[in-house]
């Protein structure tokens, strides 16, 4: 009886997840389909064609923009995951105050346009040259807050007795931290890093203001293509990025299989 209820429940929950996937991937599938449509338009199927991919490979500026965004996102992820995790631990375990809690999470709460203009004005005031570094700095400040929030949620039920046990067994505080605390936190850290990368890679308005005239991120490039509505090449871009991310993730999983699986599986 219990198992039946459990299975029915599983079915219902699974159905919900299926709905989520459908919702998330429907437009993606549309894009993938269109990217192989010779006419490029959704109204007519012009036959299977890879011309949009050829056009994409010939667009060096789009590829350059992709490279720029990826590099920025990687650096931002590394820095903000570190800062964010440290922040979460600090807020949860050391200085504890509601006020500090609220203040720290404010960057995630300010409309990005305000932050964007504020940052540009500040950089100009302080005569800091706009470029790669300024975009990274701008992205880090709100990304680290997202990481902190996710890791914090995890810390909420952290059972400190594990740490105490480790210390009773003779481990130093640093060793406990590195070999007990961080690993237990790693699902949260990994989730946070995933979000940090996504947010930075896809971010438009803050990058637009802080990148200066020479640094063109991928969202900036796409946004300026809006002039013509979205050209069919863009469908090819979307499909290519999807394929690339999938393979990157598979590769990452293969390389770090043991560690990451242990982390997520708990």
């Amino acid at each position, binding site marked *: 009886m219990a198992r039946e209820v459990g299975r029915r429940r599983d079915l219902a929950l699974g159905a919900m997840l299926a709905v989520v996937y459908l919702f998330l991937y429907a437009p993606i599938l549309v894009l993938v389909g269109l990217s192989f449509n010779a006419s490029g*338009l*959704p*109204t007519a199927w012009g036959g299977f064609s890879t011309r949009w991919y050829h056009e994409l490979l010939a667009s060096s500026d789009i590829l350059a923009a992709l490279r720029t965004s990826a*590099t920025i996102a*990687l*650096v931002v992820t*590394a*820095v903000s995951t*570190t800062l964010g995790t440290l922040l979460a631990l600090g807020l949860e375990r050391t200085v504890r105050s509601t006020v500090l809690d609220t203040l720290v999470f404010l960057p995630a709460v300010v409309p990005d346009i305000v932050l964007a*203009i504020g940052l*540009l*004005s500040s950089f*100009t005031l302080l005569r800091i*040259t*706009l*470029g*790669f*570094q300024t975009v*990274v700095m701008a992205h880090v400040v709100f990304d680290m807050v997202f990481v902190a929030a996710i890791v914090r949620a995890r810390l909420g039920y952290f059972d400190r007795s594990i740490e105490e046990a480790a210390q009773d067994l003779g481990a130093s505080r640093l060793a406990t931290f*590195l*070999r007990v605390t*961080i*690993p237990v936190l790693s699902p949260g850290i990994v989730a946070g890093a995933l979000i940090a990368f996504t947010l930075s890679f896809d971010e438009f308005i803050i990058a*637009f*203001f802080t990148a*200066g*005239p*020479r*640094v*063109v991120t991928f969202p*900036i*490039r796409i*946004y*300026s*293509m*809006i*002039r*013509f*509505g*979205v050209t069919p090449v863009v469908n090819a871009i979307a499909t290519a990025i999807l394929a690339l991310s999938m393979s990157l993730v598979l590769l990452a999983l293969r390389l*770090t299989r043991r*560690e990451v699986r*242990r982390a997520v599986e708990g």
Partner: protein
Amino acid sequence: MRRWIRSAALATTVVLALAACGGGGDAGGDAGTGGVPLEDQTLTISNWDAYTPEGLIEAFEEETGVDVTLALHTTNEDLVGKIQAAQGGGFDLVFISGNYLQTLIDQGWAAEIDHDLIPNLANLHPEANELGYDPGNRYSVPYTWGTTGVCYRSDLVEDEPTSWTIFHDPPADLVGKMTMLGTNPWLLEPALRSLGFSLNTTDPAEIEAATRWTIEAKENLKGFDDTTFYSELVAGNTWLAQAWDGWCNYGIAEDPNIRFVVPEEGSDLWTDTMVILASSENKEAAHAFIDFVLRPENGKAVAELVYYKVPNRAAMEQLDPKLLEQFPNLGIPPSELLTYESLRDPGEAISLWTDAAAKIKSA
């Protein structure tokens, strides 16, 4: 576990190190002022996407040795916002619409153009030297110009639209299939023209009346569309759109059923111009670039590749007649263009316009 953390730390350090030495980049040319030879100057330009004909910049770079960086902006407002926040810096030369020029001039960010450095100014139509937003072209040089009208699918729309009032009182089958431009001043243009008011009005009562007219028209619209309307026309999602003439040509290029017409109440004359920023340290290169663009063959390339009219008489005379056949609005003569109202910056009254837009869009 330790191995994993260590390799992650190593990776992070490597990435950060790479970023530190590889990432930097100056914001703009810091070649010195006068006395620096042309080939040593650099040029940072901002323009709309695909608004510079292919090969133009490369040809200029080859001929002069100037290193050019092209930045892109999507709207005039974005550009002005960036210049504002950077206190007048960030670029050497910008492409900007004439009705946004005043704010650059008033804040001292637009450099006076040295006409002696641009002999090809002679190629312009004489009318293009007396445009309302900058008489005598002291701070700007016109790049393209044109008007706004109705762009529609002649195979789907029964009667040729002749009036701006079509948005307010459309035939039944057009309801939900029309779009208007969403930014000022074009947002209020159909209303102002239908009501007989000036497009540059700063009278609150007139703006209020136009706002109410537009809110009523909104019921009949599919939406406000500044960017995708031509592909929507081609796809048949939109049957009739308020459109700039050049943009309509992109639609015509894909579907010859699309036509452009200027309503009988008249329209506006917009101009996209080239402006040199006062903060530029490469003014000589900037002037050289403008002169280069004004060459007949380059003006012709602009018209042929971007489908916009250029105020460059020498260029328009060389235009392929077949192009004029395909895109009739390329042939609108300057004399007709000048009967339309040249757009100006509303100055202090801009808040009235922005609030009107907010009222319309939130209604």
